[in-house]
């Protein structure tokens, strides 16, 4: 537990700065940010509240990073991103209902995402597809409420600091 607390020491500093003193740190770690089916409403609400606080901390950390550093586009990741975008378009070109879109620097400057939306995403060349998954940092597929399926290739490090020294 002590090691876990070291890992979260920045988070604890954040809680103190924000004046949040009722955060149940041990329960947060034990529950691993998940709710059990047998949790009652109060436990679920507490878990969600803890999650919101943790997400606010992540948000602040990233915003601080963006504010305190001179950032430039990362040429390697931009190149990877373009390669994956063009190849994904080729992989689903026979699917007339498929849309392929890209977003860069949203919601954070460091992030990029390529999205495929179609009722039924069929990949006939899995070997190429797997190479794309491995280039991306995250890969996710989930059903949408409109009956379609969404596939995301997520990229990190789309921008990098010009140097490691913070501008103050």
């Amino acid at each position, binding site marked *: 537990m002590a090691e876990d607390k070291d890992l979260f020491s920045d988070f604890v500093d954040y809680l103190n700065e924000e004046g949040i003193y009722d955060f149940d740190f041990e329960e947060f770690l034990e529950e691993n940010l998940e709710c059990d089916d047998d949790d009652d409403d109060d436990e679920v609400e507490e878990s969600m509240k803890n999650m919101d606080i943790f997400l606010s901390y992540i948000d602040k950390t990233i915003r601080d990073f963006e504010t305190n550093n001179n950032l430039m586009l990362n040429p390697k990741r931009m190149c990877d991103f373009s390669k994956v975008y063009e190849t994904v378009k080729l992989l689903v070109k026979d699917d007339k209902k498929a849309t392929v879109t890209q977003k860069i620097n949203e919601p954070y400057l460091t992030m990029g995402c390529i999205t495929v939306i179609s*009722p*039924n*995403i*069929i*990949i*006939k060349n*899995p*070997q190429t*597809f*797997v190479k794309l*998954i*491995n280039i991306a*940092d*995250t*890969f*996710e*597929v*989930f*059903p*949408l*409420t409109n*009956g*379609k*399926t969404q*596939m995301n290739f997520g990229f990190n490090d789309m921008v990098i600091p010009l140097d490691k020294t913070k501008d103050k």
Partner: protein
Amino acid sequence: MTDCFATVSEVVSSANKRLCPPLVFSEESFDILKDYCSVIDDISEEFDGTSFSAEINKNNTISIAFDCTDILFGKRNQKYVQLINRAISCEFKNIGNSMLEIKLTFPSLWTKPKP
């Protein structure tokens, strides 16, 4: 819920009666497919899957489908990514009720007899 290999074994057993002879069943390929099924079990468990289905296609390739709420692969999920690499094709379909069906098609377990 039965495991993936139990579902696949049932379908393969039924197809065996129909295809052999003249085709020859490859035990080696079946053992490899058993490993794939084990990985599919893991994916299904991690992403709240509820069922499996399997079918033998016209060209004797085998398709295994399973449902799940969603999938999210990061760098630690290489086992899952490599499973897709072994497939001939893969399909992601919204089947309603916030569930996704993933269908992976693998090479045939049956070969023509050597002359």
